[in-house]
């Protein structure tokens, strides 16, 4: 999983630019919307009448309907919506959900290296898709059905404002979906936890006393292996008191205990505890990253090694080129024994070398204190490509004295960490090999966050997505029939999912061109990087490019306005990859959703208000 650059921002850092964008975007969009309405209205009845009509609608909206808005009526509609959903369709989705989970156990690959990820991404994706489909069909059905069956006549002839109708529907569906998601969440939670559960016994064969450290000492403990369960076995060690752990397999470990006064050579005396460590919420603390070039001067980025899609920057081995992360807010209370680092690197080899052992690198910890910028002796490591490496930096480090003649021992926190800040420098230690790194590649592992709450945050992320789907569905259904409203909502959601891709297509960052160009390439079986050609017919190329540009401009404008669904779905990804989803990000998403709900509801109000329901 890659952390996106915008996800590093804190709430405060994000809020400023967001509110600026908001303050600019809202009036512009409002003006465009009003102008669009005026054009439609003017086309129907002439400019003066059209202007008058639009002005009156806006005036009544602000002057009459807004002050008269009533929570009581909105809730009455919401209650009706809930009742309707219960008495009609919703139960079916529960049955589907239950069935999927009943049979899923058979299809999930229990031999996987990371069963927790498998289980988590399974439940989260299943819930997301099921909930999207449900939200889509529920929300787009209600208002068109009311209009078709004309029950709407008895509603709008009561003092119900169009806005209350729209909001009441939204509230009702959100309530239904909330309960549904809560139930699904609880079921999923137990499904995952149960899925991780298994027991091991101890095999008599491997059981042996550990060899003493020095000749003549007593044995420091015992080691052994467990039985094969859930497609894996562990090996384990206990100390002379009979306590220990297994090794980490498939992301988890077990506690091993020997019952008191039992014979250590008896396999029955050992008890292997419940698995732990599989379902976690790791809390990476990210630092601010910068680069030094091979002469040791600050530089914007490292070297590009010619991979176009690479988001990492490269540093050359055996030079002063370095990647430096500055971490903040470190305190010895959180790390009493060692500083746990998580490191993911990509390696670019200019020669094959010893492909098995990997390229060597060094880590240097340096104080940020300008008056005393001491640093520790380099700590060596062997890189494992693209794989998360967990390194434990001990509290006791060594430092070379100024003359380089002797070394003394320093404490990581007492000597190097200055006001909670620390620089960590990574260099490549093999000549003419390169390390590729990005900001998220090195982090300090803070103590784990509670898994349950993280899981809940994953579901809150899904919930926010559902709220937006419901709003879009209700909004489209105020002026479209159910099938068309479903299509419209789906289009909006898809555009929201692929918004950033569309952006890249437009700016030319992504290859292959717009839809027409892509189609031509598909038919011709062209490579995406060769220039588009029709023999000598150059004008044709221009026409195709122009039409694509027009299309992409429209789509880009739309996707800029629509909610960013892939961003809202990020909570699930974090959870599935066992990362703690930041509360700050969640707060941002909640606020963004709230803004979208308001905007969509207002649009829905105007469509409903100007609709001639009996026509």
């Amino acid at each position: 999983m890659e952390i996106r650059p915008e996800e590093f921002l804190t709430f405060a850092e994000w809020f400023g630019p967001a509110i600026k964008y908001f303050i600019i975007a809202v009036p512009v969009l409002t003006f465009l919307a009003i102008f669009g309405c005026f054009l439609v209205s003017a086309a129907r009845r002439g400019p003066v009448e059209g202007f008058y009509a639009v002005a009156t609608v806006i005036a009544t909206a602000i002057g009459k309907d807004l002050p008269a808005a009533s929570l009581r009526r909105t809730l009455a509609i919401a209650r009706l919506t809930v009742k309707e959903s219960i008495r009609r369709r919703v139960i079916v989705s529960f049955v589907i959900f239950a069935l999927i989970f009943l049979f899923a156990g058979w299809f999930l690959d229990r031999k996987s290296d990371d069963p927790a990820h498998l289980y988590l991404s399974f439940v989260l994706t299943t819930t997301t898709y099921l909930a999207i489909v449900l939200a889509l069909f529920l929300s787009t059905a209600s208002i068109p059905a009311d209009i078709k069956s004309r029950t709407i006549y008895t509603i709008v002839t009561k003092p119900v404002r169009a806005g209350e109708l729209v909001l009441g529907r939204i509230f009702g569906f959100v309530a239904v979906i909330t309960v549904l998601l809560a139930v699904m969440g609880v079921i999923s939670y137990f499904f995952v936890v149960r899925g991780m559960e298994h027991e091991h016994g101890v095999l008599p064969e491997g059981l042996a006393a550990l060899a003493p450290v020095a000749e003549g000492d007593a044995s420091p403990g015992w080691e052994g292996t467990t039985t094969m369960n859930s497609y894996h076995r562990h090996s384990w060690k206990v100390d002379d008191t009979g306590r220990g752990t297994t090794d980490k397999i498939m992301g988890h470990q077990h506690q091993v205990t020997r019952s008191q006064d039992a014979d250590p050579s008896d396999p029955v005396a050992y008890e292997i505890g419940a698995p732990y460590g599989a379902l976690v919420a790791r809390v990476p603390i990210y630092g601010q990253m910068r680069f030094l070039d091979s002469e040791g001067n600050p530089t914007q980025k490292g070297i590009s090694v010619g991979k176009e899609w690479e988001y990492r920057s490269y540093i050359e081995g055996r030079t002063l080129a370095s990647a430096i992360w500055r971490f903040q807010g470190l305190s010895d209370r959180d790390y009493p024994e060692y500083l746990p680092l998580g490191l993911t690197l990509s390696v670019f080899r200019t020669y094959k070398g010893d492909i098995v052992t990997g390229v060597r690198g060094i880590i240097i910890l340096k104080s940020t204190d300008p008056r005393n910028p001491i640093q520790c002796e380099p700590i060596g490591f062997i890189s494992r490509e693209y794989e998360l490496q967990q390194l434990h930096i001990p509290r006791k480090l060594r430092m070379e004295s100024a003359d380089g003649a002797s070394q003394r021992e320093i404490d990581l926190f007492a000597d190097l960490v200055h006001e909670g800040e620390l620089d960590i420098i990574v260099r490549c230690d093999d000549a003419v090999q390169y390390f590729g790194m990005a900001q998220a590649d090195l982090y300090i592992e803070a103590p784990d966050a509670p898994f349950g709450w993280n899981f809940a945050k994953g579901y809150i992320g899904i919930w926010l997505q559902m709220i937006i789907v419901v709003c879009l569905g209700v909004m489209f259904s105020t002026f479209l029939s159910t099938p068309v409203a479903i299509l419209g909502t789906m289009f909006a959601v898809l555009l929201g999912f692929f918004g950033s891709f569309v952006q890249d297509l437009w700016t030319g960052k992504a290859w292959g061109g717009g839809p027409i160009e892509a189609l031509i390439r598909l038919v011709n079986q062209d490579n995406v990087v060769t220039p588009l050609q029709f023999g000598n017919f150059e004008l044709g190329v221009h026409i195709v490019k122009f039409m694509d540009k027009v299309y992409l401009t429209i789509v880009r404008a739309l996707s800029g306005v629509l909610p960013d669904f892939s961003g809202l779905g990020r909570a699930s990804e974090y959870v599935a990859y066992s990362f703690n989803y930041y509360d700050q990000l969640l707060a941002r998403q909640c606020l963004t959703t709230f803004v979208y709900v308001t905007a969509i509801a207002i649009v829905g109000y105007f469509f409903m208000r100007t609709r001639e329901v009996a026509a």
Partner: protein
Amino acid sequence: MSSDSAVAKRPQPQPAPQSDVVIETHNLTKVYRDFWGRQKVRALKALDLEVRRGEIFGLLGPNGSGKTTTIKLLLGLLFPTSGRALVFGQDASDVSKNERIGYLPEESYLYKFLNAEETLDFYARLFNIPAAERKERVNRLISEVKLDWARRRQLKEYSKGMTRRIGLAQALINDPDLILLDEPTTGLDPMGSREMKDTILRLRDEGKTVLLCSHLLPDIQDVCDRIAILHSGELKELGRIDTLLTLQDETQFRAKGLTKAAEDEIRQVIEKHGGTLVGMDHPTTTLEDLFLSIVRESEAHPGRRAHERMEPR
């Protein structure tokens, strides 16, 4: 925005606040258009009406004459193509007027998955009625429309007449000042339609205004104070029902307890004027006759008002 915007035309001088006029239409016209904005039906042509407080006003006309269209325009369910409709002096598109309106649609368009109690409770919640009173009203209305025995059954199990009854209860939930009833007696049994008519009369006695439309002439004749007859969207006749049904050029006498001499004297007077005494009265025609003659007339001469006579006030 949809074809006709929700707004009315230019603001016009509001009628005097204490006006007795509850419904007013000026030149009200409705043209139904298809998706492309092409004209389909001229359902209502330049209707001018006035309904006063405390009267029962009947809209009469054959099928497709524009009765329902008129009611929908008054409720803001349709937007007028031209002209305007005022209810309580406010434009028909103004939602706040609905606080004082009750509406029984042509067919009862209610939520089939609710039962009688829930239905009324739901509609009551759309008005500002305190919870205790809401409960009381729901119970009272259910017994008024005689559905106590079926109050817990979902409306999808209801017969047509039962749905009609709950529809009426729904229209009265807010104790409205103006009640619009679209063919109130269809689907009701004779007792039911008698009860419906009694209810309408009782509402009038309580000082409410009722506008109903129907093509069931006996109903109209029984309850309405004034009627308007529509034919293919045009107003053909408007006036007090007793005046309309009185044949002013005929006089009918019928007397009791007169002496022979007095009778002879009267007969002589009649004979002196060249007549023959049959009885003495202004006979009334039936509404049916009036209605049929108007419809025939207007089919023969479309566009002409049947009898150009002054509307008695």
